[in-house]
């Protein structure tokens, strides 16, 4: 019997995610960076009271449909793109720890709507401190002092301490119950490589949770990934699921 972290379905991979879990949701901003199938699986699971963390709170299903139709940008929206906003819009999210909870102009995203209604809680945090809190969780650092944020809204309730005459904030490790991330290639041990700027929060969240689940383009033979170029080492990943050859067009279909 050999070590094999590859699972057969996204539904199986998230089946034990409990109500009230904290979930690191990978991606940054553009469609190709998100673990769309894992987000969809969490939506199908219907788990509620989630705390989600990540850069962006995401778009509703209708907004994504609009963006897919309009295709205004240079980058085509993949048909199987699912935004973390789906979970927000469906009322599965109780709290967000986010750098981009709302768009500063334009569209009102679901998180903004629910925030105005008092139906979600927000912990606003800059991307750097958010990413470093995840790295700390992975690396066994309980807390750290960063110069970033002193004297601003993100400092509320946080300890301030001077180092070399400069004030710093104490930020705590942010370990989630589950991290759902997107990677390019995996092997059965869970080693991961990413593709270009899809590395972003995906690689940052790997290992920053009790269970890290990677949605990948491809599983390759053990030994095929260059040992000098593996970005996420096997111990940080507990489950791997391969994206389907035939793209899903409806998040609600079991997958």
């Amino acid at each position, binding site marked *: 019997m050999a070590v094999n972290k590859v699972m057969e379905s996204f539904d199986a991979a998230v089946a034990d995610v409990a109500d009230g879990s904290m979930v690191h949701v990978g991606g*940054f*901003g*553009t*469609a*190709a*960076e998100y673990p769309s199938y894992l987000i969809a699986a969490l939506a199908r699971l219907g788990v509620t009271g989630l705390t989600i963390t990540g*850069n962006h709170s995401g778009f509703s299903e209708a907004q994504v449909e609009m963006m897919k139709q309009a295709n205004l*940008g*240079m*980058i*085509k929206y993949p048909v199987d793109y699912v935004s973390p906003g789906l979970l927000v819009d469906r009322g599965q999210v109780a709290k967000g720890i*986010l*750098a*981009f*909870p*709302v*768009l*500063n*102009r334009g569209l009102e995203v679901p998180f*903004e709507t629910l*925030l*105005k209604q008092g139906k979600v809680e*927000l912990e*606003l*945090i*800059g*991307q*750097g*401190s958010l*990413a*470093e809190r*995840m*790295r700390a969780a992975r690396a066994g650092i309980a807390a750290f002092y*960063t*110069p*970033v*944020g*002193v*004297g*601003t*809204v*993100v400092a509320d309730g946080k300890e301030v301490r001077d180092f070399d005459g400069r004030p710093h904030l104490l930020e705590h490790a942010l370990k989630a119950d589950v991290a759902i991330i997107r990677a390019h290639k995996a092997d059965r041990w869970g080693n991961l490589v*990413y*593709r*270009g*700027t*899809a*590395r*972003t*929060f*995906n*690689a*940052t969240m790997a290992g920053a949770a009790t269970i890290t689940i990677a949605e990948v383009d491809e599983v390759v033979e053990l030994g095929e990934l260059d040992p000098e170029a593996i*970005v996420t080492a096997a111990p940080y990943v507990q489950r791997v699921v391969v994206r389907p050859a035939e793209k899903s067009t409806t998040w609600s279909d079991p997958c």
Partner: protein
Amino acid sequence: MSQFDDKPRLDDWSMAMRASHDVHEGMVVNLGMGIPMLVSAFVEPDREVLFHTENGIIGFGRVIEDPDLVDPNCVNAGGQPVERAPGMSFMSHSDSFALIRGGWIDVTMLGSLQVGANGDLSNYHPPGKIIGSIGGAQDLAYCAKKVVVLMTHQTKAGGPKIMSQVTLPITAPTCVSRIVTDVAVLDVTADGIVLREVLGGWDPREIQEITDAELVVPTDVGELSL
């Protein structure tokens, strides 16, 4: 809107062109969303600059205009596709912000809603919004060696954006060192905001009229040239 409506103003591209003068060979430069991202277009290839984008590239090339060349996994923080260039490398978000927080960015150029006379930056929380999105700008504002703001001199309603004291929530205190607007170039100094360059067709008193902060106007204030 005001008595200055008929005066010349730089468009976004021209502001970016002026700001590009402050980008020197060998610098590590991070360009924020909006006008700042236009700056790279004015850095000719033989002036080697290492452009950093906080979503995880250092050393990328031009913004791509041809849809056939787009790689959805090679984008800047604004979601624009950028060229793969020799010497570039990808990094995770935590590694990218280690680079920022560690002070390895020579210049960051950011858009803003307001700048205070003391260099306070308020660029994340527009009036009327229940909350703003602080994004990655805060780390850049606190930790880059130099923070340059590119913004129109006035709000769309004709109000001032360079303030004796900012009225919007701050992204970072006392961090801005230069402001490039559509009518002037200004430096934030210990003595206050110094008017360095004025666009042709304007005189310094007129710039002061559309500025809330009191400006220091040297005798040798120059003309803004592109």
